[in-house]
């Protein structure tokens, strides 16, 4: 009764024949894009040939001292918090002296205590900070005493 040719590709409802629907190519394309995005880190790192992290270099003074205000492991993970609290205590409470758990006494000062020892930012701070993509704004105001103002401003 209708255009039989159109209907000839199937006969009964139970036995049906699937012809590929037109959207399959778009679905595959979408999947490829999705998987591509999801696995982005894998091929990005392959293309960039990312180098392993370069170890932090301690200055001679730091090496000689052999200690910091807290054990190294704690400094690695929590130094930002210490700096943060130091500055609050120094500025607002006027306390400037810090006694470490080991009994050593330090002046709480980024420029004058921390940077005095760790004076090479590029090989100390920046190594990890760049690797972990952590930007700081400490040096917007504070200065590295071992550098000129111009160097500090860069």
């Amino acid at each position, binding site marked *: 009764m209708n255009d039989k040719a159109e209907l000839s590709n199937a006969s009964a409802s139970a036995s049906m024949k699937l012809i590929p629907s037109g959207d399959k190519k778009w679905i595959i394309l979408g999947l490829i894009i999705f998987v591509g995005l999801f696995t982005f880190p894998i091929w990005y790192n392959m293309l960039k040939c990312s180098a392993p992290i370069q170890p932090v270099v301690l200055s001679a003074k730091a090496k000689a001292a052999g200690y910091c205000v807290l054990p190294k492991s*704690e400094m690695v993970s*929590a130094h930002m918090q210490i700096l943060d609290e130091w500055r609050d205590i120094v500025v607002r409470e006027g*306390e400037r002296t810090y006694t470490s758990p080991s009994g050593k006494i330090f002046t709480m000062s980024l420029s004058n205590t921390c940077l005095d020892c760790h004076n090479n930012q590029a090989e100390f701070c920046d190594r990890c900070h760049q690797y972990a993509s952590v930007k700081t704004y400490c040096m917007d105001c504070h200065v590295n005493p071992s550098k000129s103002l111009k160097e500090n401003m860069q």
Partner: protein
Amino acid sequence: MKNSRRKFLKIAGATAAGLGLSTTAIKALESTTAEPPRAPDPHAAPAVDTIKMGKPVIDETAPVADVKKNPPPSKAKQWAMVVDTRQFKSSKDLEPVVNACNKIHNIPSLNKKHEIKWIWEEEYKHLFPSLETKFLAEEVKHRPFPALCNHCENPPCVRACPTQATFKRKDGIVLMDFHRCIGCRFCMAACPYGARSFNYVDPRPNIEEFNPQFPTRTKGVVEKCNFCAERLAKGQWPACVEASNGAITFGDLDDPDSDVRKVLKNNFSVRRNVSLGTEPSVYYII
């Protein structure tokens, strides 16, 4: 509160604990904070002095008030300053004082609109408009007067600041916390002495001589004279006092034996616009 602020001491203990036993972790924190390390008295055992700024120079022969100067203290109830303006004959006498401050605090040189001033030179009529006389002595009229923050006992700027970025310390110093200042400049409107400056632009490119021991400021914050709190902490006189050749006396206003009290006892002094009730801590001997 101060004690528990030391909790970063044992921060790593909590690190290992994770959150699995957070109550234990917190207990661990508490136990470390129970015994705070005591801040040593700087007089008994000098602080680790990484700053070599030299000891205060005390010139006994200087023609100041005829009292023997006390050694620099580091604690006070209300720091105050007495300026013997008679000793500043011309701008040349004041210049080293201003320069000492500018240099030590990394103060930039900027145009008049944006300038940063902690201590600066003013004429009598501007400094004491309410004490103006019609026929002022010529010498006083042209005398350079140092203007600076009065570290008021009742500071309107502290009242106005919405973030406590400017606050009054227990020793009477009105201080700025540059980390907290949001740059709303309410304090500048509140200050009746024009003592506050705002960093309209980045100060760093305009700093001529530079002191690595003191931070610069970032654009967008207010700043002002801090009575050299950083030097007082180390038992040093403020830079201007040191550079004034004895013209400026500094000390604890609450201590009857302090230099400032001695000087004030023996000289007639005035303060700026006392009618406002701010109780300035900077006294001028005219």
